[in-house]
């Protein structure tokens, strides 16, 4: 408009101004992208956190009170508690450049052990719970030794363990479900994580609290202890870590054992959530945990990401799950969107890693 107003006007100066503006815009924008890349590199949980906040806000706007209420928001926490806990275990393993396909199976076997030891053999439930943890830890130990000492690929080891643990679960449990009412009457401590604290509309089950505490503790361990630094180093470059003086085998084995113990905890929380002990539960937990971890910005190539990210990843899936259901969409849309998020997250991971190039 201004150029037509003064046809004799100095195009030159206008052009000069224009180019200066462009140049000015161009440079900060480039460095802005770079600094975003760098920020994400240092804080890989940032993107999932942003997606989480945006999706909560988005669904809140569309659905109003039905979604944006203390009750509904804490409900999402309850719904993701199990996957969140298992995803924490998965995070540890994936940080070491591994993957654990057996997490869901270990969780279910541990819950079955806790239930059956109480009801079949009459153990005090507290002892049965310890046995469940022991079995979870043992499963992890086997995987860990096979990965660290025998040097088999984690994918193969845990693929095998998945089948073995799941089959043991079905053989041992004889496909029997222990009903919620029986547990409540005879061994209520098995349902401990189903108890809840309420304030206002918010409901926090002990399972949710356990998940949050677990993530906090793991976050601390990973960032502020030598063990945590070693976990990252092993995943980043195991050979380099070994040469730098990290006891790689011990670190790997410890990761799988801790992973197994966390899965056992998830098994206990599972009993609290579904009330009963069911050997057919948790069939998709391994995939769901990997989904949460990937969406949470943890690199499948090891050494990068934070356990907070996995929690955010699990929550994103939970938010989309509840939000889309409240909107009345076909459940397939949830899976479709989660698929998009997974691919987006991995693409982003690749981009972030390029900061080093």
């Amino acid at each position: 408009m201004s150029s037509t107003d003064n046809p004799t006007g100095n195009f030159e100066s206008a052009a000069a101004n224009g180019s200066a503006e462009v140049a000015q815009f161009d440079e900060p924008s480039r460095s802005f992208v770079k600094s975003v890349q760098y920020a994400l590199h240092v804080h890989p949980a940032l993107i999932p956190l942003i997606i989480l906040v945006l999706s909560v806000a988005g669904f809140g706007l569309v659905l109003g009170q039905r979604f944006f209420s203390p009750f509904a928001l804490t409900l999402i926490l309850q719904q993701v508690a199990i996957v969140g806990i298992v995803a924490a275990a998965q995070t540890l393993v994936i940080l070491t450049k591994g993957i654990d396909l057996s997490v869901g199976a270990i969780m279910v076997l541990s819950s079955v052990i806790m239930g059956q030891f109480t009801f079949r053999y009459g153990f005090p439930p507290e002892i049965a719970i310890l046995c469940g943890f022991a079995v979870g830890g043992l499963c992890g130990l086997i995987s860990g030794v096979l990965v660290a000492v025998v040097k088999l690929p984690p994918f193969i080891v845990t693929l095998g363990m998945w089948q073995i643990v799941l089959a043991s679960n079905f053989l041992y449990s004889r496909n029997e479900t222990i009903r919620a009412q029986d547990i409540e009457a005879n061994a209520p401590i098995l349902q401990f994580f189903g108890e809840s604290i309420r304030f206002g509309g918010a409901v926090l089950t002990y399972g949710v609290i356990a998940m949050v505490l677990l993530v906090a503790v793991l976050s601390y361990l990973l960032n502020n202890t030598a063990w945590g630094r070693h976990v990252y180093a092993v995943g980043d470059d195991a050979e380099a870590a070994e040469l730098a003086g990290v006891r790689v085998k011990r670190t790997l084995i410890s990761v799988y054992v801790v992973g197994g113990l966390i899965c056992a905890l998830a098994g206990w929380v599972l009993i609290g959530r579904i009330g009963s002990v069911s050997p057919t539960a948790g069939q998709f937990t391994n995939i769901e945990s990997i989904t949460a971890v990937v969406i949470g910005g943890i690199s499948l190539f090891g050494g990068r990401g934070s356990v907070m990210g996995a929690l955010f990843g699990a929550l994103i899936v939970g938010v989309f799950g509840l939000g889309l259901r409240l909107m009345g969409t076909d459940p397939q849309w949830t899976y479709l969107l989660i698929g998009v998020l997974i691919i987006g997250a991995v693409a982003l991971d690749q981009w972030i890693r390029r900061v080093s190039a």
Partner: protein
Amino acid sequence: MSEKFVLQAKGLVKRFGRVVALDHADFELRAGEILAVIGDNGAGKSTLIKSLSGAMAPDEGEILLEGEKVHFSSPMAARNAGIETVYQNLALSPALSIADNMFMGREIRRPGLLGKAFRMLDKKAMDGVARRKLSELGLMTIQNIRQPVETLSGGQRQGVAVARAAAFGSRVVILDEPTAALGVKESRKVLDLILGLRAKGLPVVLISHNMPHVFEIADRIHIHRLGRRIALINPKDHSMSDAVAIMTGAMAPPQSQAA
């Protein structure tokens, strides 16, 4: 003959199946010197270095550290004995920070309950030491000690690895091909770092293919061929082409210097 060496190996033998990688190899490192180890590919240099740095156990022979027989079961054992090695791949974790890398495997914990019961790391102390070590080596172009190693240039990474070795190596520093992946300017910097180590009194073992670099900074040159040391020469007495000829078998090793 009765000279006391900092690090010495006698008659090392290492076989891989039918391949003899070390064939009664000897090795001597004097106090305060830069000893270069050169040899053709497959001559057994890396096997020798791995034996000295604990990454591999020789089948026969003995290793003496300041006159005492030692057996290193792991790199960590050699390291605890004061032998630091900078491997060709640097053994750094790219995603971790400079400070994390410098203290990998020997982190400092917080004093008191936090460290004992909660195993909390003393990040402040570690950052401080790392910063000091890097500036000692003139590497403080790096501003942020918590910066991931992968954001550094090749020379800077080498610098971090050397700084780590210098920080903890109380007796010997071994450098495997420290300039192989670097440009001219960065190589210069690393060579200065090595000279700096010698100036501090630390003996250095330098494995390199780069003859100009070797001849520039080495006090003596250990020539490895067919699994054993065939010559030990002074760079002032021999030319680069002599060294290469001995190394490749085109020239007979000078007898007088061999012992």
